[in-house]
Every structure is written in structure tokens, then in C-alpha cells.
């Protein structure tokens, strides 16, 4: 029982953190011009933040794999990219719902929106590549290169709101220029922290699962199955006398 709790402590913390974030998000004051729609902030900002974190972890783990050639780095890179794809999808869908409430459209050809969708495609390609290769070593090397290449896309995504100045607001976190009321900022920071803990818990589980998949693959390769022609025996010569 104790070991089970020890194994599950991060899950418990994640659930508690999400509940706390939800309470703070619902208790935060309404924004005058946007009403309750502004509460999407507490999902949208943490999910896009975690998309960056996930793909950043994929980038670092890919480099670590190429340097050390240890498969555990590849498993971390793949697990993080999968979670990143989920968070990016949630960020886009959340942003679209928020966009409908504030801009009156679900989608607009805004630079940040478009490049975030492109970033999602890059990592869907990364996951497709991983699925296309069965051998763990070959998969790790190829994926590591793409995991590093993916960073090329992250830079324009992040700076798009500064470079283009289109419909999307500029970056929410600007330490020298915070234009947010204290309670809303506090709720947002709690939400970001809670989602980050959820990311850590998901990464831990996905990594463990990937490790099991790797062990299953190695076991299946190690088992010596029947070979074609096994049933054919050599004819006996001269037994009839």
C-alpha cells in the first residue's frame, strides 16, 4: 500500500493542483469587456506554455540521445512530443473557442494561430516517423534529428506576435510590463504551475509505458520462433535394404 502511494504521489499532487487551479480560476474576478470567456486564459496560456516545454524537452532529449546513445533519452523525447501534441491541440481548440467569443470567428489567418497549427504538423510528422520504424535504435537516431530540427519552427511561433502584430495579443508573460490584476495573475500562475505538474505526471507515465513497449519489443526479438522449413526432415537413405 505504501509503495503504491509512493508510486502515485505525483498523480495525487497533479489532481490536487488541478482542483486548486480550477477553484482559483472560477473565483477570479470577471473581466469587464470579455465576461466569463476570459477564463479561457487559465487553460489557453498553460497549454501553449506546456507545448513549448514539451517540444523543448524533446529537443534537449534528442541532443542527449545523440551524445550518449542511451535509448532512455529517445523514450523521453517521444513521450514528451506526444504530450506536446495533445497540449498544442487543446491550446488551439481553446484558442478557437475564446476567439469566437472575442473576435466572433473560430479561425482567422493570424500569424500566431497559423504558425501554431504548423508547429502541430511538425510534431505530428515526428510522431508519424516514430510509428513508421519498428527498430528502436533506428527510430531513435532518425527521430533525434527531427526532434532537433523541430526547434526551427518554435522560434517563429513564439515571436510571431511581435513580428507581425496581428489580431492575437502579444505574449502574456512580459515581466517588465505586467498588465493584469493581481488576483487574475495569481490564478493564472497557479494554473500554469498545476498544468506543469500534470505534464510531469503524464511524462512519467508515458515514459514508463514506452519502456514497457521497448522491453516487449526486445523480448519478441529475443524469442526464437519456428523457422520456415523446420518441419522438413532429411530423407533416410538405404533403409529399405
Amino acid at each position, binding site marked *: 500500500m505504501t509503495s503504491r502511494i509512493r508510486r502515485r504521489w505525483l498523480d495525487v499532487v497533479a489532481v490536487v493542483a488541478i482542483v486548486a487551479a480550477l477553484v482559483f480560476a472560477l473565483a477570479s474576478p470577471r473581466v469587464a469587456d470579455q465576461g466569463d470567456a476570459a477564463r479561457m486564459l487559465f487553460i489557453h496560456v498553460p497549454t501553449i506554455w506546456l507545448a513549448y516545454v514539451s517540444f523543448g524537452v524533446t529537443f534537449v532529449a534528442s541532443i542527449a540521445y*545523440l551524445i550518449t546513445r542511451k535509448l532512455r533519452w529517445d523514450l523521453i523525447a517521444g513521450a514528451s512530443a506526444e504530450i506536446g501534441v495533445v497540449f498544442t491541440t487543446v491550446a488551439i481548440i481553446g484558442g478557437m473557442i475564446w476567439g469566437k467569443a472575442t473576435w466572433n470567428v473560430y479561425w482567422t489567418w493570424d500569424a500566431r494561430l497559423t504558425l501554431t497549427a504548423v508547429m502541430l504538423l511538425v510534431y505530428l510528422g515526428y510522431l*508519424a516517423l516514430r510509428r*513508421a*520504424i519498428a527498430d528502436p535504435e533506428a527510430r531513435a537516431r532518425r527521430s533525434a*534529428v527531427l526532434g532537433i530540427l523541430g526547434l*526551427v*519552427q518554435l522560434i517563429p511561433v513564439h515571436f510571431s506576435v511581435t513580428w507581425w502584430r496581428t489580431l492575437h495579443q502579444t505574449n502574456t508573460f512580459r515581466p517588465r510590463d505586467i498588465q493584469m490584476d493581481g488576483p487574475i495573475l495569481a490564478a493564472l500562475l497557479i494554473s500554469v504551475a498545476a498544468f506543469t505538474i500534470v505534464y510531469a505526471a503524464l511524462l512519467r507515465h508515458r515514459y514508463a509505458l514506452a519502456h514497457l513497449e521497448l522491453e516487449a519489443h526486445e523480448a519478441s526479438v529475443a524469442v526464437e520462433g519456428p523457422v520456415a522449413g523446420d518441419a522438413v526432415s532429411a530423407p533416410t537413405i538405404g533403409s529399405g535394404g
Partner: protein
Amino acid sequence: MHDRFWQQALAIARRDLDRERRSGEVAWVTIPFGASALLLVPLAVGINQDVLGRIGTGMLFVVVMLFGVLTAVRRTNLETPAQRDAITLLGVDPVAEFAGKTIASSVLLLLFEVVMGVVALTLYGLDLSNWGWMGVVMPLTAVGLAELGTISAAIAISIDAGPALVPLLVTPLAIPLLLGATQTVELGPDGGNLSWLLLMTAVVLVLAIVGVVTARPLQEIR
């Protein structure tokens, strides 16, 4: 050592260009296909000259991106497994191999871009005021796409789903090049196009670094 590197790189580039000279794949297949794509656009969006003039530069680079990168990918895929093994066993520096393939693809892509530029000018009646910038933008786009195509082809080599996978890997990653190229030419110096040129240069440099750093592991997997 330095001479040996360039000797190997240029030998590989020469081999790829010789192969193109013999097969004429870019000249007789990719260029006509790209030109027909540029011809199809007015049929799809209408033949209003103002509209065509506005979208022309963007369409030119979309066609260059979609068709051009296939050229770069094709260079790598033309090698047979035996040829790849021979290159590895001969001790060819993986970085020199990457550089050689990129040089050959860049030359072919530049040729493709120039011809597509002439076709776009003829069909769309583009405003030529900022076209001097093409002298910088076209080589940068060619080198960037060549690097991206060479790396992506090496990643997807010998995978059954490779031919279907490569466009998915390349197209999103080529977006910064497409944006940079279009904006540099459309905005001109008065519209602040230097930052776009800087973005393109940065992407080309990052791709070169990735290509150099990952050349050895990519040579190992094939």
C-alpha cells in the same frame, strides 16, 4: 584535411549534377510540372490581373517550396543501398556528403526558381520594383530547401512509408523560408524587409548546423 573535405563534397555534388544531366529529371519533369501548377492557379482563383499581381510572388514561392523540395529529396533517394554502402566504406566524411548533396540540390533548385520566376512574371504580370531582392532571396531559398530536403530524405531513407512521410516532414519546416522569401520581395527596404532576410539567413544557418551535427548519425542508420 580541409582540401580533402571539399574534394569529397565537390565529387558528390558533381556526381549528382552529372546524374541530373543524364536523366534531365529537373529540366524535363519538375520544371514543366511546376509551370503547370503556376498555370493552374489563375484558373482556380480567377484571371483578375490585380489579384494575380498581389498573390503572384507568394504563389511562386509556394510552388518552389512544394516542388523544389522534392528535387532535393530525390537526389538522396536515387542512391541504391549498395552505393550508400560504398560511400560509407570508402570513408567519405558524412559532413562532406551532406555538403555535396546540398550543393548539387542548391544548384538545381536555383535553376528551378529562376525558370519559375520567369513563368510567374509572364503569367501574373508582377510588379518588378522589388525584384532586385530576388538576387538574394532565391539563392537563400535554394540553399535552405536543399539543406532541409537532404536532411529529411536521410531521415526517411529505407522506410516503407518514406515517400509519403517526407512531404509531411519538410513542408511545415519550410514555412519560415516561404514567409521570409515572399515578405522580403513584397515589402522591399521601405517596408522593413531586412528583418525577413535576417530570418531566412538564420534559418539557413540553423539548418546547416543541424545538417553538420547530425550527418554522422544519419550516415549510420542507412
